[in-house]
Each structure stands twice: as structure tokens, then as C-alpha cells.
């Protein structure tokens, strides 16, 4: 019998799906650019370019969800909190710098040059007038600095995930209890941010984020495609990073933790350390996705941290197929685009005579039913279709139990 030999192969050769993914993403990005209003044939409206750009960000956060849930087996129902926090951190700078431009322009008309105090006061009144305050809360200390807020996009959600994860994993909270704990975390954060004195404008949230400071002359047509490119780049990089991460020994260990964490402990791996690492890393990825998403959405408010948002995230990944990265991307893109089609009032209502099915109301029911159906009948999700296709191409015959010692012919032929 031939001995199994290891052949040195590059990362991409071992993971052909990465190349396919990058290729499809590149073609898609090019296609949208060519059809956009800014750089092409104007077949796709600017608002739809924004929708597509936002969808790419949702795909990125779904990748993070797939890593923590599909690979490490931790069903976190709080990752959209990190997504929203990332949006808030960048939003603070966007809003500050944009308001500063307006205030400076307004004060310049007064004749005398404005003092820094006047400018600062003016910005504070503009931003916080809506919640009855006229001074900057301490958390806006760095808001004037783009680089500081960019750092906070990573540091704040990352720090929160580190602290929360450390407490939860160290106490060995697992399974459904951990899920409930993460739901409580996102709910608590949302309730806190809803307060006017939270320093982030309460339920008004941050708005006008689509206007980039210093780029007032650039049209939204151009800006939308720039953000679309940035989102596509982030998704591509995120995909390659996570594909690399799960392909090696690290991926082995986290999948092993998912399947039997006690056994992994006896192998000498600190399970808690790995969980914390994955939890924090995915929180940071979610935050970066959020920082790219909200400038395209234009507005962020505490409703974005509602527990249901994180549950949707899990539903996307489940429908797309957890435990495989492209599954998460397909699920997020498919379900979120379908969702905006159904809830956008564009789906035709179905008249039944005695009752009319209005999709704006019934979409959630349909989504819920599909989630149950996928869980029961197709646990591999949409991604499972690729297995069917691959099975057709190259039948895997070595899989079956072939009986005692010598096995049957099928076994030998498969191993050669």
C-alpha cells in the first residue's frame, strides 16, 4: 500500500475557496463600479451602491460571527454591540469635524477671527443642543482627532470584549448561559446609550455621518463608491485573515474546543485563553465593519444595539452555513438583501381574497420559518449546496465504515 506522503503546498493551494472568493469579490466590485453613477454607466443608483456597500460590511461581521460560533462554538448574541460601538467611535469624529467646519464658517462671517474657545463652544452647542447640553462630555476628549478615534474603533470594543470575555470565560460560563449573558450585555449597553446624559446624544444618536469633513465638494455619488471599495477591501482582507487563521493548528484547536473542550484542556491548551482571544478578535473585526457601515448608513442610534440585531446576525450565519467562511458571507448577503427588498415595500403583496399578505409585516414570519426549516432540514445551510456540487464532481468513497480489519475493495481503492 502506498504510504501517505505530505506534500508542501501553499496556503492558497490548500484553500482554493479563498481564491474563488477574492475573484468573485473583485469581479463584483468592478461590476458595481462600472455600473455606478460616479464612474460608469449609471445603471445602479447611488442609494443602491450604499446598500451594497453596507451589505459588504454585514458580510464582514458575519465572518466574525462564523469564527466565534461556527468554529469556536461560542454562540455570542452580542456581537452587533461591538459593530455599533465601532460605528459610534468613528461617528464621533465625523460629527465633530463636520460640525467644526460649519461653526468655523459661520463664525468667520462675524468679522473678528473666532477664538478656539468660541469654536469649541459652538460645536458643543450644535451637537448637544438636542439633548439640552452645551458642553462636551469627557468621552469626546479625543473627538477632534481622526487617528485617536480610529484607534478607539479598535480599543473600545476590543477592551469591552476583553473584560467581558475574561469574566465570563474564567468562570467557565458556556452554552446557552453565555448566550444569555451576551444578550444582557448588548441590552444593557443599548439602555445606557438611550439616556440623554450618556454623552452620545441619547436616542438621537449621531447623524449626518455620510458627509465627510473636508470633502464637502465631493458628491455622494463618488463617496458612496469610495466606501463601497473600502468595504470590499476590508471584507477581502478579513476573509483572507480568517481563512488563514482557521486553516492552521489554531483552527484545529478552536474546532476541538467547540467539539470537546474538556479534552482540549487535557491536551494542555488553555481553553479560556483561546476563547478570550477569539472573542476579542471577532469583536474588533465587528467594530471595523461597523466603522465602515455607519458612514454609509448616515446615522447611528442606540436601537442598533438592540438584542434582536445580534440574533439576526446568528440567523444569517445559520442560514448561510456555519463552520465555513463563505457560508457566512452568502447568508449575510442573501438574507439582508432579501430583507431590505421585502421590508422596502417593493415585494408584491399576495392577495388571498379573505386576507392580503403584506410582506412588510410577514417578512419576519417568513424569515423565522426559514430559520427553523434550515435548522431542521439543512443544518449545513446554503453553503451545504457546495458540498453537493463537490460530491458530484469527485465522489468521496472512502467515507463509509467498511467493516473489519481488511476492509473491502472500496476502501483500498480510495486510499491509493
Amino acid at each position, binding site marked *: *500500500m502506498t504510504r*501517505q506522503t*505530505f506534500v508542501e503546498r501553499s496556503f492558497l493551494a490548500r484553500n482554493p475557496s479563498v481564491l474563488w472568493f477574492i475573484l468573485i469579490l473583485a469581479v463584483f466590485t468592478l461590476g458595481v463600479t462600472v455600473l455606478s453613477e460616479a464612474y460608469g454607466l449609471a445603471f445602479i443608483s447611488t442609494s443602491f451602491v450604499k446598500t451594497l456597500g453596507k451589505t459588504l460590511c454585514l458580510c464582514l461581521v458575519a465572518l466574525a460571527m462564523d469564527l466565534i460560533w461556527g468554529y469556536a462554538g461560542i454562540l455570542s448574541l452580542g456581537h452587533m454591540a461591538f459593530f455599533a460601538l465601532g460605528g459610534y467611535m468613528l461617528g464621533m469624529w465625523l460629527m465633530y469635524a463636520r460640525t467644526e467646519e460649519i461653526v468655523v464658517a459661520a463664525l468667520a462671517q462675524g468679522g473678528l477671527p473666532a477664538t478656539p474657545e468660541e469654536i469649541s463652544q459652538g460645536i458643543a452647542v450644535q451637537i448637544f443642543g438636542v439633548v439640552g447640553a452645551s458642553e462636551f462630555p469627557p468621552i469626546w476628549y479625543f473627538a477632534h482627532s481622526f487617528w485617536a478615534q480610529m484607534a478607539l474603533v479598535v480599543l473600545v470594543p476590543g477592551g469591552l470584549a476583553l473584560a467581558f470575555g475574561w469574566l465570563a470565560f474564567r468562570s467557565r460560563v458556556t452554552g446557552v448561559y453565555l448566550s444569555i449573558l451576551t444578550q444582557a450585555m448588548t441590552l444593557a449597553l443599548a439602555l445606557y446609550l438611550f439616556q440623554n446624559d450618556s454623552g452620545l446624544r441619547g436616542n438621537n444618536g449621531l447623524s449626518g455621518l455620510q458627509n465627510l469633513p473636508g470633502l464637502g465638494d465631493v458628491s455622494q455619488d463618488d463617496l458612496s463608491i469610495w466606501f463601497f471599495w473600502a468595504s470590499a477591501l476590508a471584507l477581502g482582507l478579513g476573509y483572507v485573515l480568517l481563512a488563514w487563521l482557521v486553516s492552521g493548528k489554531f483552527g*484545529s484547536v478552536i474546532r476541538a474546543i467547540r467539539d470537546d473542550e*474538556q479534552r482540549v484542556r487535557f491536551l*494542555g491548551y488553555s481553553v479560556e485563553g483561546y476563547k478570550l482571544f477569539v472573542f476579542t478578535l471577532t469583536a474588533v473585526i465587528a467594530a471595523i465593519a461597523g466603522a465602515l457601515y455607519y458612514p454609509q448608513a448616515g446615522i447611528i442610534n442606540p436601537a442598533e444595539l438592540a438584542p434582536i440585531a445580534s440574533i439576526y446576525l446568528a440567523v444569517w450565519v445559520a442560514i448561510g452555513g456555519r463552520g465555513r467562511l463563505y457560508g457566512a458571507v452568502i447568508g449575510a448577503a442573501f438574507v439582508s438583501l432579501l430583507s431590505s427588498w421585502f421590508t422596502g415595500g417593493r415585494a408584491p403583496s399576495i392577495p388571498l381574497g379573505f386576507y392580503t399578505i403584506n410582506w412588510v409585516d410577514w417578512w419576519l414570519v417568513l424569515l423565522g420559518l426559514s430559520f427553523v426549516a434550515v435548522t431542521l432540514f439543512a443544518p449545513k445551510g446554503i453553503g451545504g449546496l457546495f458540498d453537493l456540487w463537490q460530491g458530484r464532481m469527485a465522489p468521496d468513497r472512502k*467515507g463509509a465504515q467498511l467493516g473489519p480489519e481488511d476492509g473491502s475493495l472500496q476502501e483500498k481503492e480510495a486510499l491509493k
Partner: protein
Amino acid sequence: MTALLEVSGVSVTFDGFRAINNLSFSIGAQELRAIIGPNGAGKTTFMDIVTGKTRPDKGSVTFGERSVSLLSLSEAEIARAGVGRKFQRPTVFEDQTVAENLTMALKAQRAPWRVLFWKEGPDDRARVQALAEEVGLADHLPRKSGELSHGQKQWLEIGMLLAQEPRLLLVDEPAAGMTLAEREHTTQLLVEMAKTRAVVVVEHDMEFVRRLNCKVTVLHEGAVLAEGSLDHVTKNQQVIEVYLGRG
């Protein structure tokens, strides 16, 4: 011979039931030892204590030349210190290939950051290949371990334990569910392993214990009832009463 593992005066109580009662036990650095005893004698609890899964109420457990106390270490730290454990039911990671299972168990840095940037070198590859040959799975390296037969999974787990290079190996009923030929192979392997490390075998099957031909410790109600050669302990009147006499 100095002891590698020294358990002294250990007691543990579960909801008022005293599972381990003032148990003392020690084993040398290169020694094979069988632990026998009726159900509920505390065999599994004893293993749980040594591997850090259960914390005793009192007593001490020390390991190695520097007599490190295992009671303050986590399961993972104990495993890294050199204690390996084989469960009764084969527990391998069924969703992963035989090669991945062995690679994960290979003695190497265990910290997340180190593992992330770990790259398989020719030495590691050769080691995995050698281990697979030793346990008769060389032809199955690229297969998902969930596809293996029960006996092959047992072997894979033994291979993983060898890969960890533990100084002390705790083996829970290795012969369970094995064919006669596999038992013989297992016996040889355990005897071979005990030449370079300490091996503790918990076993029900007296025939298998006889094959091991080593010192035997009899547990009863959480304490050591007798210790010595198999012939010696089977002549012990107390042992006959509590354990063998019933058969």
C-alpha cells in the same frame, strides 16, 4: 527510586458521600502500575484529582523532581507539566483528520499566539508519521477520525498521548471494547511506554492486569486496600471479600 507522583492523605466528598478517603499513593518515574477495585471504589475520582478536574478537600498531590503541587494548577497547566490522560471511551476530535488530531497533541508551545504562528516543519511531519506508524494508522492520516472504527479511535488516542510526551500517563480501562489481538498490542505498548515514563492503568479486567505483570494497587471505598504483585493481592483476605469473592 524517588517518586514522580506523590499523593498523600487526600480526601474528597461529593454531597456527603466520601468518594476518596485519606488516600495515599506514589509512583516512580519509570513504573507501570495497575489500579483495580470494584465500582465506586474511587478509581475515576482519583484520576480526576491528579488531572485537576476535581479539587480534593484535603491532602496534597505533588509531581516531579521539584515536587510541584498540582492542586494549584489548572487542567491545562497539569497537562503541560507532563500528565497525560486516556479516557475510557475514545475521545478524539471526530471532525478532524487523524493527522490534525496528532498534530494538535504534539509536544509544542500551547499559548494561542504561538499556536497561531506555528508552522509545521519537517521534524513535526516526521514525528506525526512515526506516531501514526507506531499505532498502526499510517495509512489513515488524511481520514476524518470520525470515520475510524472503535479500536482505531482507541489507537489514535493512544497516539495522541504519545505525542504529548507525558511523564505520567493515566489510562482508564484501555482494553474495553478491544479484540484479543488489539489487547495484546495494547499490553506491549503499555509495557514499552513504562520503560521511559510512569504509567497508571485503571482496569476491571483481571486477565488484562495479569498480562501487564506489574505492581497492583487495590482501591476500596476511596482508600488503598492492598498493594503488591497480583498474586500477592489476590491472596489478601480482605481483597477477596470486597472484590474477588463476589465473582
